[in-house]
């Protein structure tokens, strides 16, 4: 797993209080990992902080699963 993927997983485990085994690429933040709308906003902000990127709202809307977050950040992280 890439360094970015490791960090993304760690942030999700910390913020959503879930087990590492649940954080699969297909796992949806809201449907599988118990996030509500505010949790999702917080996750996106943590990604922005950790990877020093700014994720526009219209793109953030497309980040709904662990895998989507990893691929977005692998593409955009500085």
């Amino acid at each position, binding site marked *: 797993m890439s360094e970015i993927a490791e960090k993304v997983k760690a942030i999700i485990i910390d*913020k*959503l*209080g879930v087990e590492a085994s649940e954080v699969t690429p297909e796992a949806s933040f809201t449907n599988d990992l118990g996030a509500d709308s*505010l949790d999702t*906003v*917080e996750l996106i*902000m943590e990604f922005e902080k950790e990877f020093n990127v700014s994720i526009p709202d219209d793109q953030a809307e497309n980040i709904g699963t662990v895998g989507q977050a990893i691929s977005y950040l692998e593409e955009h992280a500085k």
Partner: protein
Amino acid sequence: MSLRRVVVTGLGAITPLGKTAPAYWEGLQAGVSGAAPITRFDASKFKTRFACEVKDYNPDSYFPTKEGRKMDIFTQFALIAADEAIQDAKLEGVDKDRVGVIWGSGIGGLTSLQAECIAFANGDGTPRFNPFFIPKMIADSASGNISIRHKFRGPNFVTTSACASSSDSIISAFNYIRLNMADVVVTGGSEAAITESGVGGFNALKAMSERNDAPEQASRPYDKERDGFVLGEGAASLVLEEYEHAKARGAKIYAELIGGGMSADAYHITAPDPEGNGVVLVMQNALRDAGITPADVDYINTHGTSTPLGDGAEVKAIQKVFGEHAYDLNISSTKSMTGHLLGGAGAIEAVACILAMQHNIVPPTINHFTDDPELDPKLNFTFNKAQEREVNVAMSNTFGFGGHNTSVIFRKIRD
């Protein structure tokens, strides 16, 4: 329309003396001080470096980490105290549409506000405010979270009147039940202001004791050498319930809430009126509402914060209202032990009054070393040791910055 009667059917507390209502009472009657050096932050550069913290508090022992993180510590305290009171009252079977939550907090989520502002100031100007910041900070998140947790759908709000906040929440709860707008209200108050901004702010007001060499002796209401209040934190909760409703479900009844009074000093934003006119008025208002005379009162749990001006003004007011009967009263300031919980003070002191009635023991004003010549020596301030006494009627006074005065009166239950 006749007003309905209101009784207390549940108690809860998390305080500097103990993390449940029974543990709190143990500390009160033993005359223990809750003051110690501050552990929450590095206070080495502060004028006051001690406070009455809730000891060994770890939110993880009460909440899943993810849940606890979304609440300011003042809301965590609120939930812990309310949970205990709700369990104590055994509310499982009641109609949740008729249960309200009316809480009190003087400030709200100061820790969260401070942390977010510091994080912003340390950044490059990009706003990265946490989405939970506002819901954590706002004072009404306490009542909101209690209702969400227990599905109580009755009236729900928070009262804010500085250090009178949770006496005002108790009176509001009392009124909503009296007026048939709810059958049960979970009330109380909480505060958690032992932060850099809280301690620094109160130091700037010259309101807090700076007795750093003897923290446990710093809160000394009515002592000649008193030099300010000691900041406390925590929460207490009371389940208030309509009398017939409580009887019908066989609830344990601690006491009846028989009256509440409110007034304003209309004098100064932080200094008390030296004549105590607003304080005279509030006690008269409470006695009138309760339909009793001054001679009926056995015990007054005073506001008595240990400030040079405030303590004297309140005693003067008590003597004006109670006349000769003032000498027959037990008077005590439990802030000598708990410190000053600000918006939580009214609630923890109401609980102290109710437990004093239940046990017929008056908790003391500890740390009395030197008589204050300005205070009438014939008054019984219950100095240093708890006193046994049949307590049928107890009054609790709280006053807040802004000149808010509130007084509530409890009586042992009778038909």
